[in-house]
């Protein structure tokens, strides 16, 4: 299957300034019988070193698939992923393996992402062992340093197993393990969705601390706009495999231009009993990615949809400084 370059790259910055540049990424899953799920359709994005890009959207919008495709898990159907100047989609298995330590990931369910039989020290040490970093004493010191930096006391936790910890603590252990090889890029896939509100804040703060301490660049995947507000430099809203809107957090929340973004903002629960239920509450659910609507993919749920939206797909275009939107009739 060939895909044509659709020109949705207005938001990209010069390639020599970026750590990661993705162009025209397509991820498709063949279900057999001629049925193909287009999970990610022609998505382009870039990341400058030290930035945090948040990818936000509902279940099934392709945000996790996109995150995994960056790590070649599995490799995308087409498109390029340039990481530190190399297109990693073109690398041999061996060369790709050598790039992998620089890109790590943490997952939504911290308990199932740890091996239940491994004590904490072994879980955190494993990446170092696989890569033959240092001798046993050096590795052990590194494990202690990592555990300390994620706020766990090595003396207390080293020999304990995941079931002895709460969800928040398991997420701390996962973060320590992901940082063991000193990655440049950390992809966080819904890292706080499974946690209590009070613990969410702790993990979000920890990720910001780690970003500073280890010079990380972050991709933060979430379905909840309120969670990403504090941590992001840029936010990208996705719907059914496509980008709707990209902006800085303050710009996006004060002036959402896409009707989908506005609905997402309106869905966030607010701890105020006096607040009226938002009129922009989304009806229904996203259509099937097997057979996405023609033109703008959001038009079937959009309050402002016209005939134009069914026939012509909106391109990402500059609306204000650093604010890009793909909509024929953006909100004023």
């Amino acid at each position: 299957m060939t895909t044509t370059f659709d020109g949705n790259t207005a938001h990209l910055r010069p390639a020599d300034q970026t750590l990661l540049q993705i162009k025209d990424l397509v991820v498709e899953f063949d279900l057999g019988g001629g049925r193909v799920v287009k999970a990610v359709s022609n998505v382009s994005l870039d990341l400058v070193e030290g930035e945090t890009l948040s990818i936000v959207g509902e279940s099934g919008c392709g945000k996790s698939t996109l995150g995994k495709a960056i790590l070649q898990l599995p490799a995308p159907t087409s498109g390029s992923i340039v990481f530190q100047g190399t297109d990693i989609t073109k690398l041999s298995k061996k060369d790709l393996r050598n790039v992998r330590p620089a890109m790590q990931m943490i997952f939504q369910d911290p308990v199932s992402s740890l091996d239940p039989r491994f004590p904490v020290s072994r879980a955190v040490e494993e990446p170092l062992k696989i890569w033959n970093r240092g001798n046993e004493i050096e590795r052990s010191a590194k494990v202690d340093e990592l555990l300390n930096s994620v706020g766990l006391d090595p003396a207390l936790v080293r020999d304990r197993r995941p079931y002895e910890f709460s969800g928040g603590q398991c997420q701390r252990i996962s973060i320590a393990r992901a940082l063991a090889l000193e990655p440049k890029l950390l992809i966080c896939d819904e890292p706080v969705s499974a946690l209590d509100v009070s613990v969410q804040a702790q993990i979000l703060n920890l990720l910001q601390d780690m970003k500073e301490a280890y010079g990380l660049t972050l991709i933060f995947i979430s379905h909840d706009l309120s969670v990403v507000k504090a941590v992001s430099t840029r936010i990208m809203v996705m719907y059914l495999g496509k980008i709707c809107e990209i902006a800085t957090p303050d710009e996006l929340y004060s002036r959402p231009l896409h009707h989908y973004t506005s609905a997402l903002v309106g869905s966030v629960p607010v701890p105020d009993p006096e607040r009226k239920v938002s009129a922009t509450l989304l009806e229904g659910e996203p259509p099937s990615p097997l057979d996405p609507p023609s033109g703008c993919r959001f038009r079937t749920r959009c309050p402002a949809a016209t005939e134009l939206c069914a026939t012509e797909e909106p391109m990402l275009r500059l609306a204000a400084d650093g604010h890009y939107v793909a909509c024929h009739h953006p909100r004023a």
Partner: protein
Amino acid sequence: MLKLENLEISFATNRGSLHAVKGVTLDIAAGESIGIVGESGSGKTVLSRASMGLLAPTATRTGTVTFDGKEISSLSRDEVRETWGTGMAMIFQDPMTALNPVRRVGSQIMEGLTVRLGMSKADARKRAIELLGRVRIPDPEQALKKFPGQLSGGMRQRVMIAIALACNPKLLFADEPTTALDVTVQAQILQLLSELRKELNMSMVLVTHDLGVVAGHTDKIAVMYAGEVVEYATTKDLFARMRMPYTEALMKSIPRLSTPSGSRLPVIEGRLPDPTKPEPGCLFASRCPYAQEKCRTQHPDLTTDSDGHQYRCFFPLGAAQ
């Protein structure tokens, strides 16, 4: 409708007795909606299970649970069963594991109708279609034939609600009904529960860890910490005049759209106390920014102020220090 009096629940564990619920007194009137808010381990789920007579055999219980004038613990297993469905019903956090994956949605909804209400299959089917329409599932007749795996998370939770409502319960327990769902779907499900409650004049207990979820959808809120109710007031009053430092801390830790980007979020330092090791003072003292010597040595009782607002604190917020 439901009355809990001095309810104490503990579990026997190999580390000793775990005191999960400590002296909880609550009552829920007909048509009323109450939120129970707390972190993992605060005892909120155990409390709602106990109210339905769903405690594990390792649990020991003192105090009383009265539903519709009947003491639940004095009833036999069969009599407790009689109250399920028609009296009390429950929906759970994870709609996938709560539904049977190898049975069609229709037969799971009809089961309660034929077994509990003695309906004929044809009547039950009609009622099931009506119920699916009620929970706003598009094309209910088609939906009857589907398996849970063919539905999205939000649709599965709607099916769970349809099953819970099948026998017209007087009281619905919703235990973290939206935690596994997207924010957009969460907003829809909460809206649906509120509408159905009014339509059917049903009481509801909404159990959650998120104060944002209960704000617009309950009449009263009980905040739980380490097995105790630490604050209990009408929703309006609670948000307007928080008395308990724990509630304030919980409120502050909610990530919001108004949080400045690049800022640190306020957190509640420390952890819940170990439920197997009783402490003499206020259970929140070790994490409380306002704690004083008295808080570490004496246990505060639940205090009721003039307008019925209850709190468990020696130095409540908003009082002259």
